[in-house]
Structure formats: C-alpha cells, structure tokens
C-alpha cells in the first residue's frame, strides 16, 4: 500500500519514512496517519466553492427537499444524551483537545465515529484521549529505574528514525503490567510486560521495527524484543478496548460531550468527547435494531469513443442515476438522474439536465452533500464509477469536485492498492476513501460470497432476481447520447435500472442485515468485511477474549512453509454405483468447532514437547491428539478458542430460538443474519489457525483438528458396520459406502425410506454416545436413489420426511462449472432428472443420443454451445495461447468498437477449421458464426465437452456406456452448414435445386424437379412446417426481449451476451428470413 496521493499537498509535516511494501499480502494491517490539515483545501479555494454555490442557487433549492430531518430542540440545546448506531470508525491526527485534555498538547490521534441516530440524524463523534500502544515482554530483572532508562533509549531511537517530525514526545509512557502470552500452556499465571504508549498510531509500527532489530541497553547489551499486539489497527484497538463492535449503538450522556465550535463535518450532530465517557451498547433487544440509514445506489454512463472503452482522460460522463433508500423501507425515497444535455421527463423520477459536464459532476457532488448518504452502493463502483468520476473531474480540472466525504472541504483520498490473495489472484485497483460513508460494492460482495458463472450485473440479477436486464453496448451509448431528448431519456431509463438493481440485490439477499450482524458478531467495522480478509475477524474476537483473560497475543509472523503442510481432511473411499435403496447420511454437526471444544484445542493449552518434559503434567490431564500433539484439559487451563466457539454456538442457538419466536420481519431479518454470521464465524476459526501466512498460525491446532476428524469418520464407519449386522438381529448388514469430511453415507439395506430414517436416527444416537461432548453425530437426510460417481461427486434425491423428497441434490457434477457450455449443464441436469426422479434410465440414454444426434446434425441451438472465459490481460501477456484471447485479438482486427476488452468475458464457439489447426485457432465469435453460417465443430463438443461428464454419470449405471452413448448408430449422420463467406463460395454459382431431392433445376423450374412434382403437397407441408416452427420461436423470443426492456414501442437494443436467448433471438431472425425465401419459391 504505497502512500501516493496524486493530488498536490502542502509539504507534509512528514512522519517516518514511508515503509515501502511491494506486495502486501491480503492480511497485512497497516495504520496510516492522515493529518487533518493536509486533506483540507485552503481558505481561498473554499471561498471559491461558496461563491460557486451561490451561482447554483436554483439547484440548491431543488436539492434541499432531500435533506435529513431537522434537529429537535433537545438536540440543539444539548440537553439530551446522544444515541446513535455507528457505521464507520476512523481516526485523524489533529491538535489534542485543550478543554477535554488540558494536560496534553501537540498532535494526537482523534477517533471519529460516524453514524445515524434513530431519528435519522447524521452523527460525527470525535473521541479524544485514546492512545496507541503495544506490549513487549519485560526482560527479567528490570526494575522501575531501568524502565525509565529504557524509555529514554527508545525515545532517542525513535527521534533518530523520525528526524523531521514535529512531535514533542514519541514514546508517551512505558508501564509495567502483568500479562501472559497466549502461546503455550504455562503454569505461572502472569509475567511482567511493558506497555509502550506512543504518540501516534503509525509509531507503533516504527517502534516495533526498532525493537525487532534490537536496541542497546545498559547492562543487558544489544537486545531485541518480541512485540505483542503491535499489529492491531488503531481503530480496532479502540473498539476492542471500549467494547465496541461493528455497527452497534453508542451513547454519550448529556453533559459529557462538547459541541464543536467550528463544525468540521457536514453531519448534523458533531461533537467532541472523551473515550472513557462512551457507553457502548451490546446489540441485544432494543439495541439490535437498525437505524434508518440512507443508502445511495448510483450508476454512471460515459460516452466512449468508437472502438475504445471509456477513459476518464477523454470521455465525458453523461449521466448519473441515483436512488436513495432508507434502511428498512421497500420504496426508494429519492429517484433522480442527472444528464448532460436535455432529456425527456421520466415518470416518478426527477430528471436534472445540464449543459456542461462540469455542472453534472458538481450537481452530483452537491447532491451527495445534501442527501448525506451513510452507505454508498452500486455495481462495480469501487473499480469503475467512483474512480472514473474522480479522474474525470481531475481531467476537467474541477478541483472542488472530490469533496464527497462528510468532512467539510476534505477531498476524497485515492490510493493505488494491490490486493493479492490466493483465491482471487493479484489485482490492482484504486481505493477511494470517502470519509464517513461506507462503500458497499455489490460486485465485490458477489465475487466474495457466491460462486457464479458470470458476475455481470445482468447475469447476477437473472440469477437472484430472475430478471433479465437489457444490456446496452458501450458503443451504442454515444449514439443515444448524440440523438435527441428521447434517446437520452432511453439511456437514462437504462442507467436508472442499473442503479436500481444493486438496491434490489441488497434487499433480496439481506446484505445490510447479514453484514451488520457479521460486524457485530466478529467485532470489526463494517468496512473491514469487504476490504479485508477472513482472518481479521477471528483476530478481533481473539483479541477481545484475550483482553478479558489478561492474555496478550504475540506478533509472530512465521514463515509458514517452514512448518510444512499437514494432512488435510480425509474421505472414505467411495464405492461408486447407482444405489436404488435408501442411503442414510449421518452428519457431524459443526465438526471442526466441536472437536476444538471437545479436546480443548487452543494456543494456550498447547504443550510444547520441551514443556511436556519439564512441567511434569499428569498424563490424565492431557489429550494426546492423533497427530501427536499434546493439549492440557480444561481443568488445568480452559482454552480461549473453545470458549469463543462455545459462545458463538450458544449465541447461534439463541438467535435461532429467537428467530422462531419473532414475528416482525425486520427483527427476523436481523436474527437470521446473526445466526448465519455466527455459523460462518465459528467455522472460520479452524481456518485461522491453519492459515500459514495469517496472523497467528498454529499448525499444531489445525493438524490435530483434522486428524481427530479423520479418526471420527473411521470410528463411525467401524461402529456402524459392527453394530448393524444380521448377527445383531438386524435385517441386513449395514454398509458404509462413502464418507466425506463431516458426513458418512450408510446403506442399511432396507428399502423403505421410513425404516432407513429410523435406523439412521438410532445409529446417530448410538454413535454420538461414544464421543466426547459436544461432538455429535446427527441423522439428517436420506438419499434415495443415490448416484455415487466418485469422491466429492454424487447426486441423489434428498429426503427429510418419509412421504416425499425435498429436492434433487448434486455435488461436484458439471451443473455449475463456468467453463462448460450450457449444453453440458442442461444435458447433465436433464439426465439426472430422468434417472433419479423419473427412474427412466433408457429414457435418459435416448435423451443423450438425441442430443448428440442434434449436435452432429447441426440442429443445436448455438447459445447452448457458447463457452465463456474472462479476458484478464491482453494477448501478449499470456504465455500460452488460449482460445478466447486469440479470438479477442481477431475481433479487434475486425471491428475494434465491439471487440472485448480486458475485464470483459469473451464468449466463443469452436468451429471447424482446417486439419491440424490448433485448438486455440478454432474459436470464433458466436455472432460471426451465425451471420456467416460457419460450421461448428461437433467433434470438439462431443469429445471435449460432453463426453466426460456424461460418461461419469452413466458409467455406474450402464455397461459399455461409452460405446453405447458416444459411438452408436445415432452418431452416423452428420450435417455441416456451408459457410457463406469462405473463399470457394465466392466462385460458386447459385443455382436452384429441387426442394424434394436436391437435384439441380433447369428449364425455368424454381421449386421441384419433374420427378418430385407428384409429391408437391407433402413437400410443401414440410417446408411450411419449418416456417411455422420458426415463426413461433421468433414471436416468443422477440416479445420476451420487449418485456425485458420494458417497452413495446421502442426497438430492442440489448446486446447482452449473457442472456440465454441472445443468440437464439439473432438466429431466429436470420433463419426466419431464409425460411420465408424458401417458402416463397412455391409461389409459382
């Protein structure tokens, strides 16, 4: 995270030399001090803005109707306490408050809490007096004198490192405290530690660096220190110490706060207070509600040049659509759109048109300031919309534009960030911080929380809202903009829809509730949930718990690879086959958390081999894990992780019980979000201990967990197969056919679902009894019938009650993989449906044969054959040539305007090419294929797409599946279309052939040869039937597109390649025209 601010700043009163970090891993936490005065613009500029505002009086009047509710008398007279839900916490460096802290001076960190009161007032609470600190272990024999000496030495070293800083004192205090490290079981309850309090948050890191490298101490020589809790972000430190969790309610009693003399923010309530006067309410009862925060959803449109993706340096922003919703209401409060140039009115929408782009941008800024949203949402706003607006304003030299935050006259800060994670790869982007407002980019959320084949807004809304959205290609946008007020209105409607859909997604998927609850459960600010990884959530909980227990957490960055990897979860070997008897599934309920609780696995219960020898712990007080580690039992030391897990699971139980009772849908939403957050949090604790580049990896714990897991699965298998036997009086011998990480599949041999359920329950209860609490085996469901293909791949009907099945359940089967064409997905789903639900294996076989025949006969709908891949970099950057990259290059040569750009997904089909052509040369744009009748390569689809998934399904069922399905007589006839643009066709002479027998026609005959004349009735029937089928299709497809675009009187413009009917619609149009021509030949 390099500190590069593109904007000019006054010479900063520099802190320490910025530590350059080339590639920050996902979970590197670094505080960054922001000096208040730096971000503010100068007085001259401010007056320029004010002048400017006056000129736009008319606009201001228009915007003012959307301001927040007025403050009541109680607030203005400061006679009541202020209670608000906080959403964002950050800090700035400013002069310490003279009234509240009469004894300090100089720069200090001021915590800012932004939030909303229950009446809907915006709040900015500035908290003073909280100081950054960390711990080191106190070297033995250090007395009070030594401490003051140590303090001086450290201060001197700090001054050396930060030479041009104007801070009076770097190390404020060094105190001796009694603490204990969280690592390893220790019999002594506490040791002396030194708490080092520094002046500014960034100094924690620089001080840590000095201590890591070692300092010269009198009498002790050169000594380096292990630091504790020195990697905790300042805002998080504050929250932990004040028991504040993300998104909770905070109260400041009357008289304890001071209204700011000169308000620095745009918030209605702005005041200063001491950190010790804050009252933090736990999110229970009344305080679990949500304040009516304002959520702004917006979208911008830019007019790109032909052949280029819009660039902020050149292409104007032409429209900005906004939608503001109050949390908890279904209907938006405000709907408006700002357009460049005139735009016809839109019902229910406030259309604001401007002549100059500058005015559009400034109007939007004024709108943000007036509406004062707490949360800003949108689709890909963090990567596109927001950076674009800011860079565009910079290109237009509108210096006063980027004042979008809540701090008066403070510009937004733009940082280049590199986010790299094992999951997502490395991404470069711009991080834009808008002070006091939470950014919630639905695009990021979708990528994080869901596995989808495409993340375009169109396909995401099709998936979750079952609503197709029309997609206007960016090359058309400029045409619409350059048209008239009507075409711009068209664009505005489209733009509004793009602003509306993120809000719908937010509502539908309950993101506000789920994320606020996640913040409350894990205790981190809401903004961390999206911008940071998993581990900070666990770390936050660990730190809170450790603080209660007087434990401190070392800042131990281990090089993970040293410890090597450990054996992962195991699965019992799958006995592949098609089971037509009920299969009972026994599941361990939250297996890993239960293991950690049952065996008291924790950092503080781990006994090192060395300690095991020295400490002389009785063997009955320890657990020896199957992986060979030793942990003490809870009578000696209760583990912190088990305690956290117990609380999480107990809280989840409570939330679920409350959920059952709850009536109010809003309360329900909160509770459901909470129980989900609790579940996710409980499951992520295990991962935290195993993350080798994480905050506090401890492979002893994670490998013990998995080894116990393996042992339990084996144990269960053994017990089931030993107990449920004919010798023990059961009807059949039970058989474990498969076992996964936390479940075991048993075939009891009975053929009735209900009987299997009873046996399943009996087995679960019996086996649970043999485990240490709270490990519990539960009977959950029956699979019947069950198609087990291999490990992690299976399908079956899912029964939880004896009379009817709930659904069809599949795992690891090609129904969702993104790099398959739709044909594979449909084929697999339909086959499974036929096999499992209809119990019609021959039908399924026939179905596959028909599909293969259709494919070979060129009758397949092209959209089913489209394969889509994301274009992440340009062709030169790829080392190996791949189909989609090559195609993108080729398309660029054909027409740069519509060619896919980096970041787009490239759809393609595989076409027949010359013998020996490389696979990557055979890709082609589906539209191009349609327009030019290019033959697809059915063999490719047969061999590379269909064959594997289909054989996987059929092999357990059918003998000779491959021969039967892929090489039968249905594969004999093949039809290939003749390309209309290939070289040879240019020289071919078109001559009519007989519709009946394809013989060449002569002597003026146009339809049939003399031989076929007698059959004209039947041949006509055939031709007309084809026309009729196409007409049906044509009508259905085109009216559907009218429906999507929401207008009957306007032409369909949509070019969404994600839409399943896009290619079909195009093809129907073309086929229709051809079929009509064919039919017209009969009119002799």
């Amino acid at each position, binding site marked *: 995270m390099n500190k590069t601010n593109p904007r000019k700043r006054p010479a900063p009163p520099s802190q320490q030399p910025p530590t350059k970090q080339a590639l920050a891993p996902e979970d590197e936490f670094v505080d960054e001090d922001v000096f208040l005065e730096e971000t503010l613009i100068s007085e001259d500029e401010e007056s320029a803005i004010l002048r400017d505002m006056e000129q736009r009086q008319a606009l201001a009047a228009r915007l003012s109707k959307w301001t927040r509710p007025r403050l009541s008398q109680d607030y203005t007279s400061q006679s009541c306490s202020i209670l608000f839900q906080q959403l964002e916490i950050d800090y700035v460096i400013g002069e310490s408050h003279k009234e509240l802290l009469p004894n300090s001076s100089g720069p200090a960190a001021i915590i800012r809490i932004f939030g909303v009161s229950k009446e809907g007032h915006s709040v900015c609470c500035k908290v003073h007096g909280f100081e950054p600190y960390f711990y080191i272990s106190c070297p033995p024999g250090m007395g009070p004198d030594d401490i003051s000496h140590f303090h001086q030495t450290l201060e001197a070293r700090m001054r050396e490192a930060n030479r041009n800083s104007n801070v009076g004192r770097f190390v404020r205090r060094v105190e001796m405290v009694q603490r204990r490290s969280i690592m390893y079981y220790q019999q002594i309850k506490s040791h002396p530690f030194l708490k080092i309090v520094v002046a500014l948050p960034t100094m924690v890191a620089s001080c840590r660096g000095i201590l890591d490298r070692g300092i010269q101490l009198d009498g002790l020589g050169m000594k380096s220190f292990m630091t504790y809790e020195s990697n905790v972000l300042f805002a998080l430190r504050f929250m932990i110490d004040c028991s504040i969790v993300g998104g909770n309610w905070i109260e400041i009693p009357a008289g304890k706060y001071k209204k700011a003399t000169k308000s620095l923010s745009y918030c209605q309530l702005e005041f200063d207070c001491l950190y010790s006067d804050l009252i933090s309410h736990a999110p229970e009862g009344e305080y679990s509600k949500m304040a009516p925060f304002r959520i702004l959803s917006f979208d911008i449109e830019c007019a790109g040049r032909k052949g280029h993706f819009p660039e902020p340096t050149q292409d104007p922003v032409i429209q900005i659509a906004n939608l503001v919703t109050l949390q908890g209401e279904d*209907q938006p409060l405000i709907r408006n759109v700002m357009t460049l140039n005139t735009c*016809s*009115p*839109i*019902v*229910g929408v406030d259309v604001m048109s401007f002549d100059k782009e500058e005015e559009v941008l400034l109007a939007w800024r004024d709108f943000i300031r007036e509406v004062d949203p707490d949360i800003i949402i949108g689709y890909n706003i963090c990567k596109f919309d927001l950076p674009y607006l800011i860079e565009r304003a910079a290109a237009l030299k509108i210096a006063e534009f980027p004042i979008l935050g809540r701090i008066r006259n403070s510009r937004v800060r733009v940082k280049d960030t590199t986010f790299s994670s094992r999951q997502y790869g490395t991404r470069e982007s711009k991080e834009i911080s808008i002070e006091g407002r939470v950014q919630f980019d639905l695009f990021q959320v979708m990528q994080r929380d869901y596995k989808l084949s495409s993340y375009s807004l169109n396909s995401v809304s*099709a*998936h979750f809202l*079952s609503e*197709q959205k029309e997609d206007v290609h960016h090359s058309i946008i400029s045409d619409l903009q350059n048209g008239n007020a*009507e075409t711009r209105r068209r664009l505005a409607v489209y733009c509004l829809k793009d602003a509306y859909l993120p809000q719908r997604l937010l509502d539908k998927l309950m993101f506000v509730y789920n994320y606020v609850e996640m913040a409350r459960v894990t205790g981190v600010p809401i903004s961390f949930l999206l911008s940071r990884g998993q581990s900070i959530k666990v770390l936050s909980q660990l730190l809170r718990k450790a603080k209660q227990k007087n434990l401190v957490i070392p800042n131990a960055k281990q090089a993970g690879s040293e410890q090597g990897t450990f054996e992962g979860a195991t699965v019992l070997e799958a006995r592949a086959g098609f089971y037509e008897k009920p299969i009972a599934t026994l599941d361990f309920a939250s297996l890993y958390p239960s293991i950690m609780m049952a065996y008291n696995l924790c950092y503080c219960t781990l006994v090192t081999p060395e300690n095991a020898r020295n400490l002389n712990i009785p063997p009955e007080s320890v657990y020896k894990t199957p992986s060979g580690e030793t942990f003490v039992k809870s009578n000696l030391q209760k583990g912190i992780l088990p305690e956290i897990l117990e609380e999480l699971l107990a809280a989840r139980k409570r939330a679920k019980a409350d959920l059952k009772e709850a009536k109010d849908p809003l309360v329900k939403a909160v509770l459901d979000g909470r129980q989900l957050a609790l579940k996710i949090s409980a499951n992520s604790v295990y991962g935290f201990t195993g993350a080798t580049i994480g905050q506090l990896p401890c492979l002893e714990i994670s490998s013990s967990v998995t080894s116990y897991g393996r042992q339990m699965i084996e144990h269960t298998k053994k017990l089931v197969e030993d107990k449920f036997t004919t010798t023990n009086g059961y009807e059949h011998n039970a058989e474990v056919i498969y076992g996964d990480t936390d479940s075991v599949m048993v075939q009891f041999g009975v053929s009735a679902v209900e009987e299997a359920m009873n046996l399943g329950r009996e087995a679960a209860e019996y086996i649970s009894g043999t485990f240490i609490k709270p490990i519990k085996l539960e009977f959950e469901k029956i699979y019947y019938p069950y198609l087990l293909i291999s490990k992690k791949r299976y399908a079956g009907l899912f029964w939880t009650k004896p009379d009817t099945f709930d*659904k*069809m359940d599949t795992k690891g089967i090609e129904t969702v993989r993104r790099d398959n064409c*739709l044909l594979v997905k449909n084929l697999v*789903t*339909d086959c*499974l*449906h036929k096999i499992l*639900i209809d119990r019609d294996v021959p039908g399924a076989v026939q179905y596959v044969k028909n599909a293969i025949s259709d494919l070979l006969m060129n*009758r397949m709908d092209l959209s089913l054959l489209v394969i889509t891949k994301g274009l992440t970099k340009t062709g030169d950057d790829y080392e190996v040539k791949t189909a989609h990259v090559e195609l993108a290059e080729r398309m660029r040569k054909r027409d740069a305007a519509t060619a896919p750009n980096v970041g787009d997904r490239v759809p393609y089909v595989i076409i027949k090419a010359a013998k020996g052509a490389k696979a990557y040369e055979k890709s082609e744009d589906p539209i191009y294929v349609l327009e030019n009748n290019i033959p697809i390569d059915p063999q490719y689809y047969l061999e590379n797409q269909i064959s594997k998934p289909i054989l996987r399904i059929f092999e357990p069922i059918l003998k000779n599946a491959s021969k039967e399905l892929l090489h039968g007589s249905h594969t004999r006839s093949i039809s290939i279309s003749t390309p209309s643009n290939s070289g040879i066709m240019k020289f071919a002479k078109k001559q009519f052939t007989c519709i009946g027998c394809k013989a060449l026609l002569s002597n003026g005959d146009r339809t049939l040869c003399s031989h076929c004349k007698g*059959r*004209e*009735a*039947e*041949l*006509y*029937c*055939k031709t*007309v*039937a*084809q*026309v*009729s*089928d196409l*007409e*049906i299709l*044509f*009508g*259905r497809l*085109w*009216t*559907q597109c*009218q*429906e999507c675009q*929401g*207008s*009957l*009187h*306007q*032409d*369909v413009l949509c070019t969404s390649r994600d839409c*399943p*009917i896009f290619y079909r619609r195009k093809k129907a*149009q073309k086929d*229709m*025209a051809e079929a*009509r*021509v064919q*039919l017209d030949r*009969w009119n002799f």
Partner: protein
Amino acid sequence: MERVQSSYESQDEPFEIGKEMYRGQQYSQIYYARLRLMRTLLYSLVSQWKPNSPVCTVLGLEEGKECVVVGTLFKNMKLKPCILDEYSKERSVVPLVKPHNFVDDDDYLVLEDESGRVKLGGNIIVPSVYVTGIVVAIHGKETGAGDFLVQEVLEAGLPPQIEFPIKSREDRYVLLVSGLSIGSSKSNPLQFQLLVDHITGHLGDEKEQSIASQIVHVVIAGNSVEIPRGLLNGQNLASKDLSKMAEPVKELDILLNQIAAGLPLDIMPGPCDPANFSLPQQALHRCLFPGSSVYNTFRSCTNPHCFELDGIRFLGTSGQNVDDLDKYSEAKDKLDFMERTLRWRHLAPTAPNTLGCYPYTDRDPFFIQNCPHVYFVGNQEKYDTRVIKGSEGQSVRLICVPKFSENGVAVMLNLRDLECHTLSFGTQFSP
C-alpha cells in the same frame, strides 16, 4: 332443384403478406402503427367524453393534475410463461402441465405510449378483463407514488357499420364449420361425408333437399386437417413418412372436391393446418388441393378472413385470437371475448405479445375499421351465438363455431335475418 346464388366479394387483401419480408424488423413498429391509428380515433371521441380535461402523453403527467392519456396497455403477469424459463437453473422443477389460464390476482396494468410507461392504479380498471396490446383512453391523475390513478376508461367502441341490405324474403344460408381435423384420432370420416352429402343435396327427403339448396356459401374456419406434428421434429423424414404426412390433406381434397363442385367454398387455415403459424395466416397453398382447386368456386383464404355476401359483411378467424384472450384474461363466455375485440376495435390485441404475428412495419391489419354484420370464430368448445348492438345502431351477430370433429355440429346462418341454427351429424346413437 336449383341452388340459389349470391354475390360474393373477398376483402382479404389487408391480410395478405405478399412481398413483405423479414428484414430484421422488430415488433415495436406494429405497436406504434396501432397506437397511431387508435389515437387518432380516440382523440376524436375524447372531445365529447371529457371536454374539459387536458389530453397529455404519459410523460406529460403531473402529480395531481387530472387529464386524459391515450396509450397501449401492458399487463404484467407473474404466471405468464416465459421463454427464459427454459434456461432457468431449476429446469427440472418446472411442472410439465401448464395451467390453462395465466391470470393471477397480482397482475397489474401499465399504460404506455412512445414517451414512457406509467403503472395504473385504482380499482376502476380490472386487470383480469384487459390484455396487453389494447389501446384505450384513460382519465385520471398521477399520484405521489408515480402511479396513475384511473378514474374512467374509454374504449373505442364498435366501429361504424355499413347499412344492412334490404331484407329479402327468401331464406339463404351460409354454412360455417370448423375443426374437421381429418387425420386425427377424434375425427370420424363418415360424419363429414354426411355433412357433404347434406350440403350437396344427396341426403334426405325433398324438404331437406330444398333447405340444402338454399345454402349459398360454405366457410371452413380452420383446422381442417391434423398433421402428426411428431413427424416434423426437424428430423430427416423417410419418404414413406412424408407421404403419410400428406395423407389427410389428400383426403380433405377429395371431400372438398365434392362441395366445390356444387357451391362456393371458402377454406381458412387454422393452427393445425399446413400453413404458417403467425397471424395473419396465409391461404393454404393450392398445390395441396390438386382436385378442388380447379373449380372457381373453391377459394383458399387467409385467416382472419373478411368478405361480403350480398352486401352482408363477414369477419372471422379460426379461433386463435379468442383462445389467446382466454389464456390471458377472463370472461364469462367466449362471446364476451369476441365482443371485447370489437369494442377494442382490434381483432387480435395480444398479437404479437402472446400470439404470433408478422412484424408489420407500417400498418396493423388487425385494426377493425368497419363493423361486420357477422363475426365468427372457429374451433371453439361449443356452439354459441348472440347479437350485440352498438351505440350508433350497429348490430353484429357473434358466432362461436364448434369443432366439428368433436361434436359433429355445423352452423347454418340465415342471410335473411341473420338467425342461426345448427346442423348436427351424429353417427352414434347416444344411449
């Protein structure tokens, strides 16, 4: 005995596609043409209906201002089948049995013109009665929520009618029949032969023959044959199968041959006939009827079909328009649907939305310019008839022509007074 003669004039021209081609045009144009036609009409009525209300477009609406807007209705239906469902993730869960009617309590109407859309509110306008594609004038005002609160609805009403010709004394009949479904398992070849024999006067005593001689015209309103569609799944057919497919057509030709030899005959295509699917369906090709088509009394017509017989105007369809209304709206009987189409002045408002239709660019052939005297719809469940009257003295005979193959009923319409009765040909005695 000599057959009575009548003068006949075909008015099918608007329904003939001729040289129109698919050139990438979309359906927006037909809606636009419809709106333009209907708006001119409705504006002329609005001046009497609401002389004091301003007329504006959807865009021109202002909150609280009462006004009249003319626009196309769009009905949002949650049960409406959607081609995208074929692609939805849980394909297999979709029930295979589709409901007969897609009306739901949650349906709502939207009014649209070129300028925009507005949701209609209030309980004056009942969504279950209306369908997408009708053009109406609405009096109301915009509410704060952006809805348009409907206070009154104006439909175009029955179109003007040409005068009914002076009544003659003699009875002359037109015979209407539909749904012969030759080739289907339900059709009984004997039944239709009986009908043919009756028409041609080969049956019954002299009295019956004299009635038969008064039949001046026969109209076959669609679904004359049933071609096994299963054979046509795009597969390459063996020539044996192909000839099997044309078998029913040949049989039909033989029967029609007998009628056409005696009196004029109009045959309209229906959804099951070897014709195109979209409305207007084009005339069945003459090559299908090598026998009958040599007679000049044999006329292959379009569907919808419009003609004048002795100055009496007929308009009819093979049933698709009413069947589609029945799926997407509700009425107490089929005649109600027929009446509505006349009052809306549109033969097939659901085309193109749910009813296939050719994408016209400059006109809307389904707009009913002149009120017919007789309006018939083929292929209905049962025979039904009624006369409706218009505000300007128009009088229209509505007829539901039943499926002949199912109940052996044909309809006789007397041109003298437009009274109807049925002819029933049962080949089985009911117990």
